[in-house]
């Protein structure tokens, strides 16, 4: 998986606290590489979530704030409306973005808030030790769905990208994955586009990154990446779900 050889300048020297083989580290690097390539570190303000990435504020060299659980898009809205010349991004997990913070997500998208959202979908609540997430798959065993997610009892997992794409508001919504080298390269392209859109003033750009949680899935990192391919991606297909500028150009 070593596709990143050098530490991006936009990452601090603080060692990641993530579990071995956790894609959060890869996704951080992709974001940092994009910030480096766009030369925007000095004007970027990042919003950390409540979730495994809560301490992202220690890892990025740009100004950072730590938001309450699910509120990152509202906090980012507050910052961006004050400082439209800055680049503002949130980095959020699926519990954060699609459960407790769903209203903030939908409404910042509907407002076409000119921010970039990095949405890490690992189908579980990682930080709290592996409870069912709004994105946990039907039948998926978690601490709070010990017999497998029963959709008749607790409903169906939410496809956030598809749902947001039905809104008039957002500029760009794409789903990517980081389970192999090719997907990682494409993930970086989408993340870059999501930042470029903001710089060009185009509006709300969200990249859903299908990730993994080897620790709470109870798998080796390798098996987890295989499960992404075999189980996650069929339910959460990779693709660009909304790209207003591209559509309008047609």
């Amino acid at each position, binding site marked *: 998986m070593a596709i990143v050889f050098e530490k991006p300048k936009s990452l601090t020297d603080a060692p990641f606290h993530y579990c071995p083989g956790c894609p959060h580290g890869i996704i951080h690097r992709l974001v940092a590489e994009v910030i480096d390539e766009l030369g925007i570190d*000095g004007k970027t303000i990042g919003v950390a979530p409540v979730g495994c990435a809560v301490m992202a504020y*220690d890892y990025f060299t740009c100004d950072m704030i*730590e938001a309450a659980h699910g509120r990152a898009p509202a906090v980012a809205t507050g910052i961006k409306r*004050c400082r439209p010349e*800055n680049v503002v991004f949130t980095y959020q997990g699926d519990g954060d973005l699609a459960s407790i913070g769903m209203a903030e997500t939908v409404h910042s998208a509907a407002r076409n808030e000119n921010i970039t959202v990095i949405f890490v979908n690992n189908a579980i609540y990682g930080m709290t030790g592996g409870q069912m997430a709004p994105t946990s798959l039907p039948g998926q065993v978690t601490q709070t769905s010990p017999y497998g997610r029963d959709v008749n009892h607790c409903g169906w997992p939410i496809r956030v990208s598809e749902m947001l794409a039905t809104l008039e508001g957002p500029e760009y919504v794409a789903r990517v994955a980081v389970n192999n080298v090719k997907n990682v390269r494409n993930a970086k392209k989408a993340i870059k586009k999501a930042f470029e859109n903001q710089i060009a003033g185009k509006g709300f750009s969200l990249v859903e990154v299908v990730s993994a949680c080897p620790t709470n899935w109870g798998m080796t990192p390798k098996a987890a990446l295989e499960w992404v391919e075999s189980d996650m991606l069929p339910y959460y297909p990779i693709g660009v779900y909304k790209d207003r500028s591209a559509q309008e150009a047609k």
Partner: protein
Amino acid sequence: MAERILMKGNEAIAEAAIRAGCRHYFGYPITPQTEIAAYMAKRMPKIGGVFLQAESEIASINMVYGAAAAGMRVMTSSSSPGISLKQEGLSYIAGSDVPALVVNVQRGGPGLGGIQPSQSDYFQATKGGGHGDYRTIVLAPASVQEMASLTIKGFDLADKYLMTAMILADGTIGQMMEPITFEDAEIKTYDKPWALTGTEGKRKHNIVNSLYLKPDELEKKNFERFEKYAEIEKCEAMWEDYMMEDAEICVVAFGIASRVAKNAVAAARSEGIKVGLIRPITLWPFPNKAFEAAENVKAFISVELSMGQMIEDVRLATGCRKPVTLCNRTGGMIPSPDEILEAIRNAGKGV
């Protein structure tokens, strides 16, 4: 001479905020404070500011958190049920030491309660409201003029101490119209080197955060914050004494209750009863000094639009050495001057 303008209390808050340099307002509609949002919606776009109607009170307070962290003078306003939803954000704002102004134009509760004036969020405002060890500066206007002056004061205190200042008003003062003057007071601005502005590659990154995983660090942070609070208790308490010089009975009331109480005190004086009024203007810090000075008072009456919340602070301020009785209405009802007068006469019998 600054001109006299006739204004609604809620509008006075909005206009004063703009004069204090507030250019960012985030809110969600709720009666009886909607005039504040309406005023901001009209004015902000004309003066290069931002008015944004959020999807909820939770979102609006978190927008305030972001804007405050970005170094701006920012505010939100709501009424009781909405203020309950803002508590999460208020706790984060406290834990991150950023300044914000929050207005609560109270209505009756609990639950959806009613839309008539109330003071039953006293506990929530003065004792915390959200989770964790923290304080909120609470200012209680009793006139439209004070809606304006305390708003300006609130922004200043918030910036000075890096915390939330709350205007705890009520539906009556919010809705009533009175002539007021905006003195062209000098608005002080504060350096905010901690603010999120982007590093410009010139400094280490600023982090606005309330997470401390190491308990000793969190304890140290809380100790520091409480040193700041002690300073506020020492320096910032405000109150008004009315006919207190020779008072043997003391009515304690804030906000709209204090205005009714003043009439009752004047009426009781004309009956020869030695009664005065302490009107707390800051509810936190509670003006304990006012009670130290009132050593000749033999009985206190707490007049409140609640089931009796401030009365606990009155008892503490008197060291529980003097009788304190409650004269109250609740649920949106307001006591008449006669009801308060009766309470004063009763207290007088014991003196």
